[in-house]
């Protein structure tokens, strides 16, 4: 419940649209209720007057109820249409609010908070979670509030005529709208969890089958996999059958209770009519009214289901955004630097309390203008050193200074204005090559961009594309090879033109021929800059002034290459 309240607090800004949607939703339900009750009363009254002779016929006010019937019909049509427009408008506004809120929260936390979410599908789950949260208003909030308000009004209206009928309606609405769906959901919980789980297991098998097909076939393991899938499918179908029996029972029960409510209302009204305490015309009115009333609770079963999903999604999202930023830079204006020496002494950094030190007393001095190579195998602390320098993670011990200023004074944005990174993980946005380059320098001219592409040896490729700089990169456009993507990173570094350049395994995954060409072209960018070249291999280290070996979080031994 606390999660839902937090979610509601986020929705504050678009209150006008949200309230409007609810008012219209109530109006839609009540207009139908009005149409049916008035029609029933009107027909019966007209029939009574018709039977009572000419005088009664003349005395009967035909036009007001007839106009009322038309009025309710018109209101119903208009409010249904505008309700859907307004609630959807509110939903889209909320989506924008939510995404901006989430992004604003997440940006200071990245990349530390997203460490566990590196894989693309986990991130897509977050995006899907945000989309799910967004359904809260449309699928949960509006149906519940509108049902509650409309139910109160309708029960109150019944109360004017017969208390037992009003009680019957209230109970009927409560049972079909809340009790039956809740019982259904509770009974379906176990099967539902199993279904999710079985689906996930089946997905693992299917992905195995597709991605590992060569090995499955050559090792003759496909029949075993098919048997496993068949078995999973059998279990899945039987659980789903169980689930469908539960929902089917819920639907049947809802219908049954709705009908029984109507019967109870008719009996309660009939007793009063027989006793002369209620007009004859009120009986058909209440009968039709009780049928129309159930429209209010019809969306509640699905609302209840959404509520469960939304609560789970909201918990995951809040868990993510509630994290503390990994670093807290010393407040104050960005440091002004006169030189760009880096000096690390006895640096210790670990990612969690009690974890092993990823950097364990690292001493490293990199004077401005030098080209330093750093070689180490997996787990030696190479990525941690980059996380330290880029201010993605805070260090726990030791002293670090950049340009003579304490490293703790820098935010990651501040340090990024001095350092460019070229790495195998260069991210290319699914947009034009131009936009991907402008990222590095927003006000770059076309000539600047072409110059950068020239240096990166990518200009010919881009020129060969029909759309040139406006070629879209990624799935919707042209796919770049691993080498080409890294050349975009070089072009970005040229545009950004920072005093420092970090090369983070820049040739990882390239074939040797491409690797060599790439390293050759890097030389052009390195001139005049301080360069830190980090690798687990040896290729390219010969281009450095000095090479250090990193092992277990500290330097092993200096040596000239």
């Amino acid at each position: 419940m606390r999660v839902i309240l937090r979610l509601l607090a986020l929705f504050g800004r678009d209150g006008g649209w949200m309230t409007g949607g609810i008012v219209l939703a109530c109006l839609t339900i009540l207009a139908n209720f009005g149409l049916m009750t008035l029609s029933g009363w009107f027909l019966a009254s007209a029939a009574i007057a018709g039977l009572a002779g000419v005088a009664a016929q003349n005395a009967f006010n035909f036009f007001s109820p007839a106009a009322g019937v038309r009025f309710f019909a018109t209101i119903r049509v208009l409010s249904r249409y505008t309700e859907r427009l307004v609630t959807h408008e509110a939903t889209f506004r909320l989506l924008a609010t939510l995404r901006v809120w989430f992004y604003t929260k997440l940006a200071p936390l990245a990349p530390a908070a997203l460490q566990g979410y590196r894989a693309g599908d986990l991130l897509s789950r977050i995006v899907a979670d945000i989309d799910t949260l967004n359904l809260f208003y449309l699928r949960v909030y509006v149906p519940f509030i509108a049902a509650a308000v409309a139910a109160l009004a309708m029960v109150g209206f019944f109360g004017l005529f017969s208390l037992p009928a009003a009680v019957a309606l209230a109970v009927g609405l409560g049972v079909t709208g809340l009790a039956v769906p809740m019982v259904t959901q509770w009974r379906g919980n176990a099967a539902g969890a199993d279904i999710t789980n079985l689906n996930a297991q089946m997905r693992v098998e299917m992905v195995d089958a597709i991605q590992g097909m060569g090995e499955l076939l050559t090792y003759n393991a496909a029949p075993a996999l098919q048997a496993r899938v068949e078995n999973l499918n059998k279990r899945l179908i039987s659980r789903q059958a169980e689930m469908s029996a539960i929902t089917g029972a819920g639907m049947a029960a809802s219908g049954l209770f709705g009908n029984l409510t109507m019967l109870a209302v008719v009996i309660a009204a009939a007793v009063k009519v027989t006793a002369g305490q209620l007009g004859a015309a009120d009986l058909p009115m209440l009968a039709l009214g009780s049928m129309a009333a159930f429209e209010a609770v019809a969306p509640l079963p699905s609302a209840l289901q959404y509520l469960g999903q939304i609560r789970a999604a909201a918990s995951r999202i809040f868990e993510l955004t509630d994290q503390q930023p990994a670093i807290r830079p010393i407040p104050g204006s960005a440091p002004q630097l006169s030189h760009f020496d880096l000096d690390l002494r006895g640096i210790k950094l670990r990612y969690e309390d009690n974890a092993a030190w990823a950097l364990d007393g690292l001493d490293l001095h990199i004077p401005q203008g030098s080209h330093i190579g750093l070689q180490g195998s997996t787990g030696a602390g190479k990525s941690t050193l980059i996380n330290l320098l880029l201010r993605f993670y805070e260090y726990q011990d030791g002293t670090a200074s950049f340009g003579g200023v304490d490293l703790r004074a820098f935010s990651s944005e501040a340090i990024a204005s001095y350092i460019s990174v070229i790495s195998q993980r260069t991210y290319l946005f699914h947009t034009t090559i131009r936009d991907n380059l402008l990222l590095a320098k927003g006000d770059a001219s076309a000539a600047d961009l072409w110059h950068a592409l020239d240096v990166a040896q990518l200009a010919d490729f881009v020129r060969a594309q029909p759309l040139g700089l406006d070629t879209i990169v990624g799935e919707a456009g042209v796919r770049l090879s691993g080498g080409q993507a890294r050349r975009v990173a070089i072009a970005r570094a040229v545009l950004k033109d920072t005093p420092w350049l970090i090369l983070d395994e820049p040739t990882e995954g390239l074939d040797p021929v491409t690797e060599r060409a790439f390293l050759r072209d890097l030389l052009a960018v390195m001139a005049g800059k301080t360069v830190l070249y980090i690798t687990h291999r040896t290729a390219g280290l010969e281009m450095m002034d000095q090479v250090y070996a990193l092992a277990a979080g500290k330097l092993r031994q200096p040596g000239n290459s």
Partner: protein
Amino acid sequence: MSERIDPRLMAEGRRTRGALYFGIGLGVSAALLVILQAVLLAHLVRDVAFGHQNLAAVAPLLWGLAGLFGLRAALSYASEIVAFKASGKIKTYLRQTILNHVLKLGPVPAADEQSADLAGTMIEGIEALEPYFSRYVPQMALVVAVPLAILALVFPVDWISALILLGAGPLIPLFMVFVGYRAEAINQKQWQKLLLMSAHFLDVLQGLTTLKLFGRARDEIGIVARISDDYRKTTMAGLRVAFLTSAVLEFFASLAIALVAVVFGARLLHGNIDFYPAFLVLLLAPEYFVPLRGLSTHYHARMSAIAAARRMFDVLDIRVANTGTAPLPPLDAIDIVCEDLHFAYEAGAPVLDGLSCRFPAGQMTAIVGASGVGKTSLARLLLGFAKPEQGRIVINETLDLAELAPESWWQCLAWVPQNPRLFHGSIAANIRLGNPQADDEAVREAASKARALAFITAQPEGFETIIGDLGQGLSGGQIQRIALARAFLKNPQLLILDEATANLDLESEALVLEAIADLAVGRTVIVIAHRMAMAERADNVLVLEAGRVAAYGPPAQLRTADGAYARLLQAYEGDAEISNPGAELCV
């Protein structure tokens, strides 16, 4: 397009025709009982309000109604169960068929399909068919049956209101088709946009670190807001039209009820008609529109089923190439000759263009060449994953690979791809893929030969450690060595491997190379080499250029000759020395 998918889907439905029709029949009966219910209720109200009868007098009607309610509930429950049974059978059948088909197609066409997408089709896609069969199709039956039954009842009772209903009824589908088609087109456009917007947001999140590195994280907030806002505006423009569908339905339903009430009111007032028929028609008028309303809510079930079915049929429509059936006789050694192989993925872009070569028994042959020259394609042909368009592959001078049953060919070879796949399960289970009957001792020995024993026993659960589907928690070199252990355990006559040392760190690279050298002893080995170090260790080197053999022979011989191999060595610029593992280990 969607018009052609419906019949094909229904053809699938025919497999469970009995259950499907029975379920529909139950649903229609439950819906038709509503008419009987209205008749009883109208009698009841008339008898009490106008006949001045007390409750005791109308008790049979009350009991009748209660019984009817129970019957309706039972029928609706039964129809739900039966409808699921039918769709469950369809789902099972399609899932098996598609999986079989994909496995028959082999790895090459499957690689073209996005694997996540294909898995999605086989899981969520097939699930999307369920509401189509269990909701949409039965609803179609209701849309026809219920209004017709109501009209049939109302016509004899009061032809004027029957005409009103009849007039409103067919107009609705007409208007819905008119508005619906536009709405559908708009919907699909919106759907694309929605995907794009989600994709953009995902893109921004994935690139957040890059954005921060360029000091651009803050700017992107505005862009996220702007894109969401643009999307809202265009979507709402579309929805204004799309929602007309429901507005039209609402308009006719409300209009018909209001019209019935007003017209009856006037006639009742003048005593031209009894209360009973008027009330009966008023009770039935809303029910007349209920199935149509249901159809519009289940319409999106049809939309998503059709989208899913289209992807399914796309996969099922890929033709399976004919495979040979002859069993492979037991062979002691394997010698392979390729004669004039031609192969292309797309017409007009030959990958192999008249390639002839020989892989002698018991020797290691390295295939080298620049990327895109046909190395992988040649391996695929040798593995039988693809068929040459022309030419043939001959085993031991007598057997044509095309005529052999693929399963029996695979039995005598092991394949280690560049990125070996570890399957979800324990390390032991992954190694045992090479020989399911192998005992623990044999698995251990295979791991030891593959230089994998040390790191496996260092795992928390040893051989029983569960590894994720992508080998989570293991390094690239460790995954390679588990794959090699698999091959050791299989003990094949032929080993085909795609060298993957490019991404391994030096220590792993050394161990992998040692293991490969051990594994190669006494077998025919074909290795796609990406580094010259590997090629230099082979007995023979096959240099490919533009889908043909540019040079062939022992590396020592080729090195000195001024040919393709020497040029390649030149291009790799002494790569052999750099990846020499000894250099790093003695630092």
